[in-house]
């Protein structure tokens, strides 16, 4: 096939995404190196990221608590072929269940040796303990947690 005739078009938009009071409180906590969670008054599930309401019970959440910055790595994947504008591969992304939380927080995971793709999965078995590593400059966003690393 000959190369199709195309015209380069560029979209460049900057959004200021509203965080609301619930996520705003969480992000403010990150600046202070605190991971804040909230809970449903009916089913008692604890949410990180926090939720303004429990989607299951459909009631407002309450009861804020600070969770330890450690948890279990429930799953992770190594991205060998990334996306345009994304991090340089290889890198790992995982689902972390922080101690005391009923939900998964997605984040970058480090501490893996990427030299042999066939061995990566066994380096951090299901349920491995990981801890948050804080960014030096924190501005109230999820990347105030720089990444999670094996906790020992």
């Amino acid at each position, binding site marked *: *096939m000959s*190369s*199709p*005739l*195309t015209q380069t*078009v560029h979209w460049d938009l900057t*959004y200021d*995404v509203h*965080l609301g009071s619930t*996520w705003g409180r969480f*992000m403010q906590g990150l600046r202070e190196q605190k991971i804040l969670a909230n809970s449903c008054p009916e089913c008692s599930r604890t*949410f*990180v*990221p926090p939720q303004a309401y429990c*989607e299951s019970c459909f009631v407002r959440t309450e009861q804020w608590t600070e969770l330890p910055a450690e948890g279990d790595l*429930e*799953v*992770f*994947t*190594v*991205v*060998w*072929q*990334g*996306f*345009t*504008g*994304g*991090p340089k591969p290889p*890198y790992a*992304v*995982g*689902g972390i269940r922080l101690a005391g939380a009923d*939900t*998964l*927080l*997605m*984040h*970058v995971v480090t501490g893996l040796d990427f030299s042999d*793709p066939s061995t*990566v*999965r066994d380096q951090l078995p*299901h349920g491995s303990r990981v801890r948050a590593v804080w960014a030096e400059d924190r501005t109230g*966003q*999820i*990347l105030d947690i720089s990444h999670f690393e094996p906790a020992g």
Partner: protein
Amino acid sequence: MTNRVRPGPVHVVGLSCTPLLAEQDAVLDELVFDAVSAALSECALRKSDVGLSVLASMDVPDGRSISSGLTTAAAAGYLSDSYRLEADSGSAVAAAAQAVAAGDVEIAIAVGVHNPEHHAEDDAGRRRFLEQLSNLAFEPAFDRPVGMTAQTVYGMQAAHALHSGEVSLDDWAELSAAAITRGATGRRPGRSGPVTAADVLASAPVVSPLLDLMLPAPVTGAAAVVLASPARAARLLGRSAVLTGIGQATGDHTWTGDWLTRPGATTARAAADAYQNAELVDPGAEVAVVELSAPTPALHGPYLAALQLQGLAPERVSPSGGLASAHAGLANGIIRLLEAVEWLEQHQPRGRAVVHSVDTITGTVSEESTVVVVEGI
């Protein structure tokens, strides 16, 4: 959420698909026009006969804000009822069928188009762009900044499934090789074959544990279906199939983890409704073939179980090769319907097929599943 669709009998009288290519040298509306006009020709209908057209496309891959402004007329929607869904075309089929079943219109068209406005030299380049769009579709405060994409979700779901010990990478390589090989001899191959399990295992790692040949073969194109009321269908040429059941369901956010541990849950909810509509009591015994939309071999088993079709012979599961052979983005739902109807025409003219489609923009996170029961008549 489950969307209960009560279609009644809605007849399929026209079905068409453009050639599926790695990249189309065409404007979106040209592809839509080609698919719609060919589908109308099959049943000798004209644009003026169409009461409603429903288009499935998405602005971000289309490279245009409100890209439906370009495609509405090509979907036979000019000066008639027309709307666009940013969803897989399976949802467009459900919406069009609902309008016919409700008696709102006698003839409705559903059309899906997928031709991401990006030029790349190979599949890896096309995937990098599609993954960038996928990242944009994730929640912007928590998931997008940490690099979540459809492929990372599929990789994690596959890793979680491997951890269970009930499946192996070798099983998935066999499944993928068989699908690609089947599809290579079909009408719409996106990958050439034959391919062996060893070929699959030797392909490049993309998002562990998934390898290149385990992921969908990205192709582009458009597909359209013309639906008619029973009274109108009786006076028309064209296809002889009827939709007897449709169900739809939507999955949950990242943090619940259902997308990881219960990836077939949305499909199961959609299937329950579709089967109830179609009075399908024992799917394993009553369904001849299924066109499945499994974006990875790790989802093959969970989706089949959700459809209660795990007992179906392997050659009756996506005889077309499914997404491993060719995946045309949001046009996929109608292409799966086309493949199922063609299989019935060729093998069991009065048989019953199940058509399963999902959107893949955020993987199994917030997944929309559509299940359609179609019968030959």
